[in-house]
């Protein structure tokens, strides 16, 4: 009996110790990776947090980068664009991932200016409806009327006689900000009775199941279970985004505080290589930044 107790205590202690060991590991640096190249080996740890929309991409690219540079350890956390910007601003992480420009979220101008923007990819958003409503295309004005509650039945826009159910995002959501800015051109109030969900998966599920539902999703989430609407007669697809015909898209940003250190810079540069831009980014449903034929600034002005 007594022996068993001692054994248990030892086990517990060993477990605790091994956990503590994990905690200190990520600051350890190794310099054993020269592998034939004349560049000095990169070392250190990079912590990235923020946008859950960007997280899978940074995660996947991070793993590939670590395979190439064994001295660097990269950890990617979610938490949302707001968290990412807060943490990179406060210096807790090296990279803050965000769906929106930092100046749109951070009110303190000096803090926003201290952050350096690295745009790596583009995400396009399309208005989607339940397939039953029988509408294929909406104009900007019709969308505005629907999301402000002026149009409440699909028959007013040549659809079936079904009540419109709005599946919106919370007012702080980056996806909603993008949709309102570039598709509606105006901020909208939260309508009474409208549904708000933050996760794209839930939005898609509700649009699929609820009769008369309208919502908006990133292109990578769209399949034949929902109808992606044409916007002013333009199809929501990758080619139209690249050529600038389809306007509802936003950059995915990776912010650093000031200029990044060597390994963070190498990681961010790696994002812009053809390997990542045409490989991982396309594969995960984002649009490569390097292919975009148009550019857009913070105010939303588009230049060729």
């Amino acid at each position, binding site marked *: 009996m007594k022996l068993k107790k001692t054994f248990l205590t030892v086990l517990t202690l060993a477990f605790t110790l091994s956990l503590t060991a994990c905690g200190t590991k990520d600051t350890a640096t190794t310099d054993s990776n020269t592998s034939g190249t004349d560049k000095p080996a990169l070392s250190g740890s990079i912590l990235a947090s923020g946008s*859950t929309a960007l997280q899978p991409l940074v995660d996947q690219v991070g793993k590939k980068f670590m395979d190439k540079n064994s001295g660097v350890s990269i950890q990617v956390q*979610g*938490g*949302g*664009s*707001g*968290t990412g*910007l*807060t943490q990179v*601003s*406060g210096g807790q992480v090296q990279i803050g991932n965000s769906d929106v420009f930092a100046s749109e*979220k*951070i*009110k*303190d101008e000096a803090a926003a200016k201290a952050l350096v923007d690295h745009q790596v990819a583009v995400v396009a958003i399309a208005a989607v409806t339940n397939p039953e409503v029988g509408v294929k295309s909406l104009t900007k004005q019709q969308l505005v009327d629907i999301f402000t509650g002026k149009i409440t039945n699909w028959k007013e826009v040549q659809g079936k006689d079904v009540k419109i*159910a709005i599946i919106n995002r*919370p*007012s*702080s*959501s*980056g996806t909603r900000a993008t949709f309102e800015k570039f598709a509606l051109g105006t*901020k909208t*109030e*939260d*309508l*009474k*009775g*409208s*549904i*708000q*969900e*933050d996760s794209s998966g*839930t939005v898609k*599920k*509700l649009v699929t*199941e*609820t009769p008369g*539902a309208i919502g908006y999703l990133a292109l990578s989430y769209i399949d034949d279970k929902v109808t992606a609407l044409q916007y002013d007669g333009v199809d929501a697809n990758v080619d139209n985004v690249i050529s600038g015909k389809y306007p509802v898209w936003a950059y995915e940003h990776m912010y650093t505080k000031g200029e990044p250190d060597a390994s963070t810079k190498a990681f961010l540069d790696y994002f812009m290589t053809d390997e990542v831009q045409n490989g991982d980014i396309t594969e995960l449903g984002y649009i490569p930044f390097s292919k975009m034929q148009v550019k857009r600034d913070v105010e939303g002005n588009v230049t060729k």
Partner: protein
Amino acid sequence: MSAKPDQPYLLRKHKTEEWIGRGYTTICVMFLIVIIISIVYFVASKGITTFTKDGVSVSEFLFGTRWSPDDNHFGAFPFIYGSFLTSLLAAAIASPLSICAALFMTEIVPTWGKKLLQPVIELLAGIPSVVYGFIGLSILVPVLRDTFPGQGIGVAAGAIVLSIMILPTITSIATDALSSLPRNLKEASYGLGSTRWQTIKGVVLPTVMPSILTGVVLGMARAFGEALAVQMVIGNAPHVPSSLFESASTLTSVITLNMSNTVMGTAQNNALWSMALILLLMTFVFIFVVRLLERRHRL
């Protein structure tokens, strides 16, 4: 510790053991107290900035119905109302079910009732809340959508999901109370010629009522603080709903939806911390009520 040399060996050994045990437990208690005080301090100091720094008046925050952070309107009444409505409804649905289940286990079929139901209830308590939320979204919401007006999502769906989540809390507390009831009370009642139903109604329930109410209040406290499952089925529109089948919000759902998307220190983020403060204060109220009930029970 200087033990006198003439003290016998065993006495010295036991004194050392006492001292180590006392020291260790004191450290644990100190640690707990420090954690609790720092959490309360952190939430309170963040929550108060809405009123001190952002200039939102307390009455606008508590009773204002317009929540529109972009235009600086921080009326949190829809969320407070939603939280109270869903948790009260959940308690109203769950309490009769739990009390009947507890009576079944202790009074009606104590032999196999408890053996069968106890594990089931423990299992219910162990299911993660995200599973409840997902089941609610996939099964309950479509049923409500087809049966009632509206989109299925709303206060009713939230209250039903919550009521199932708090069933185990109320049931286990009620069961404990019922089984600790002295035998002689019941036997006296039977001796006077009452039936089982008369005994339950006239003797058992009135005696254990304060304990059962404690269970109901604890259940409500859990419902009040539950975030994930409710957020998935309630719809999250920041408005006071005009029907049970209309999208609404609770304090917890608005916090989980917006906290990660806002930057620390902005007015909207501070307003979310103020809501967290309200949640914390409500927890204190619930604990206070439970204490009151316990004291009445003892007298």
